């Protein structure tokens, strides 16, 4: 009874449990994914961030069993695709023809687009409709509708080689959406595109998520992309998930060093930090000073943080860098500051900041 309740309460559309993927090569074993568990809820835009080789592609290919895992459980839409311990292929719980059918409900787009070069734009989309129950003329209408959605109607009869990168990715999106999937997996779909085109593609994904409640898995090595559209993020390294949470939490209270690194890059803090860290003010930091990063979100944004620090604790804040982002409709601010005051004042001031939900990172100076 309780089990049943749990299921209906959370109801993730994708549930990966304790997934291991091990590649056996001649001399060595590569553990591409190690004991990863992830739940993706319907309507989520779930970002998976990590550097090259972290195991992101391997992990998401497990969802539609393009990659059969070594261990673990794969449950999509309540249906168990895979369940096994060291079972390999014998852990697959679904018949090949059923699997092909389920795959049609999981759209996938790739970094290198992977369009059929010898087919036109329209034929590429139609390729995904071969098993659709639609009649021939309905399929044609469906292709036309999809091309309109991605604004490529006028390119229907061109070959992929005649298109720009952004246009190719839009064809790929149209193809991935052909069978009205509930899930879209985007594996570095914007990594080969320039920033402007990247934003167009991300905007399109966001629109699909909002209009059709499409669940999206967004794999990327750019926190920037995640910041734009994802509501949840998992950070991967060496086949493991280091950290997972809402985008807001990850951005305001990152725990792992790698996560912080990604965020610094995404908010341009890395460049600011590099410059500031070498400035005289930091290299000759006094005993009664600390160099800190303050990150705050939502309500605390409007609080006169700096004023309170001075009035209550006689701590003077020297702001070296400031940045405000809108994440999921919430303001997220980050400041790089030098705080100076008495030892007691500093300790109390920092504590009060923490109490207000501001995350404080001491970058240099005595830890209060």
């Amino acid at each position, binding site marked *: 009874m309780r089990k049943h309740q749990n299921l209906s309460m959370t109801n993730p559309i994708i549930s990966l449990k304790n997934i291991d993927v091990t590649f056996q090569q001649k001399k060595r074993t590569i553990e591409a994914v190690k004991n990863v568990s992830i739940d993706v809820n319907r309507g989520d835009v779930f970002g998976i961030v990590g550097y090259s080789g972290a195991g992101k592609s391997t992990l998401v290919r497990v969802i539609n069993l393009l990659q059969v895992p070594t261990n673990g459980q794969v449950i999509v839409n309540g249906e168990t695709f895979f369940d096994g311990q060291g079972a390999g292929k014998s852990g697959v719980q679904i018949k090949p023809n059923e699997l092909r059918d389920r795959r049609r409900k999981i759209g996938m787009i790739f970094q*290198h687009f*992977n369009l*059929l070069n010898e087919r036109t734009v329209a034929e590429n989309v139609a390729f995904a409709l*071969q098993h659709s129950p639609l009649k021939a003329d309905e399929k044609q209408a469906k292709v036309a509708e999809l091309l309109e959605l991605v604004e490529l109607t006028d390119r229907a009869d061109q070959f*992929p080689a005649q298109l720009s990168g952004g246009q190719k990715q839009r064809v790929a999106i149209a193809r*991935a959406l052909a069978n009205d999937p509930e899930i879209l997996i985007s594996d570095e779909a914007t990594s080969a595109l320039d920033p402007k085109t990247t934003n167009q593609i991300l905007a399109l994904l966001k629109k699909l998520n909002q209009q059709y409640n499409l669940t999206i898995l967004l794999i990327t090595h750019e926190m920037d992309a995640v910041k734009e559209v994802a509501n949840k993020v998992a950070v991967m390294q060496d086949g493991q998930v280091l950290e997972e949470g809402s985008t807001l939490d990850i951005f305001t209270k990152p725990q792992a060093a790698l996560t912080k690194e990604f965020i610094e890059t995404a908010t341009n803090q890395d460049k600011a930090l590099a410059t500031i860290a070498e400035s005289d003010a930091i290299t000759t930091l006094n005993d009664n000073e600390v160099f800190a990063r303050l990150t705050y979100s939502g309500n605390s944004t409007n609080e006169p943080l700096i004023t309170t620090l001075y009035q209550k604790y006689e701590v003077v804040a020297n702001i070296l860098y400031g940045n405000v982002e809108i994440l999921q409709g919430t303001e997220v601010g980050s400041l790089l500051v030098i705080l100076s005051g008495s030892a007691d004042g500093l300790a109390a001031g920092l504590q009060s900041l923490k109490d207000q939900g501001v995350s404080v990172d001491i970058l240099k100076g005595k830890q209060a």
Partner: protein
Amino acid sequence: MSNWFSQTFPNVVYQGWSGDTGWLTAINQTIFMTFWSAIFGGLLGLIFGFGLVVTSPRGITPNKVLFWIFDKIVSIFRAIPFIILLAFIAPVTKTIVGTQIGSTAALVPLSLGVFPFYARQVQVALTEVDSGIVEAAQAVGASFTEIVFGVYLREGRSELIRVSTVTLISLIGLTAMAGAIGAGGLGNMAIAYGYNRFANDTTLVATFLVLVLVLIVQVVGDYLAKRYNHK
């Protein structure tokens, strides 16, 4: 003009046009052998080439045993020099065709001689089809046959035409050697009636005609390969 020709190329004229040792007969025999062994050897080569690609560890249905079998058969047949294959396969030819000599009999060793070469060429051509495209097809739930015909064959078409052209040209070369088992053809004309009888003009004209054949195959092949390439 015709007077000049018969003076410069006396042996060529002596061979005549039709008749058993005539030029038309030789041309027909070469085309006959090339065409039919291209069909049989080509089909075998395609089957083995596709087999190698789909059963390979990175293929769409990895199968160690089948891959090993395909691979070994192709390797063994490739290792046998054609001129030895001609002799070696003679008893088999006799049971299949009923005779060991002549153009028809030559089809057996020619097909077996060309198929492993072609199989490797097909394997290479298909391996060049981007694995990402195959994966994208799998991701939209394409079946095995749809991937073989709709992705590999279609995407690799231009490259397959190119390697078929190369194979066809080397097959024309093999038909010349088949002259050794009395298969006739232009190669036989160049050797038996030309070289062996010190009739250099016959050798020259036979060579020229082989070149023309090769050139036609090359030009048509290049045209088709280009036409079916949209990369």
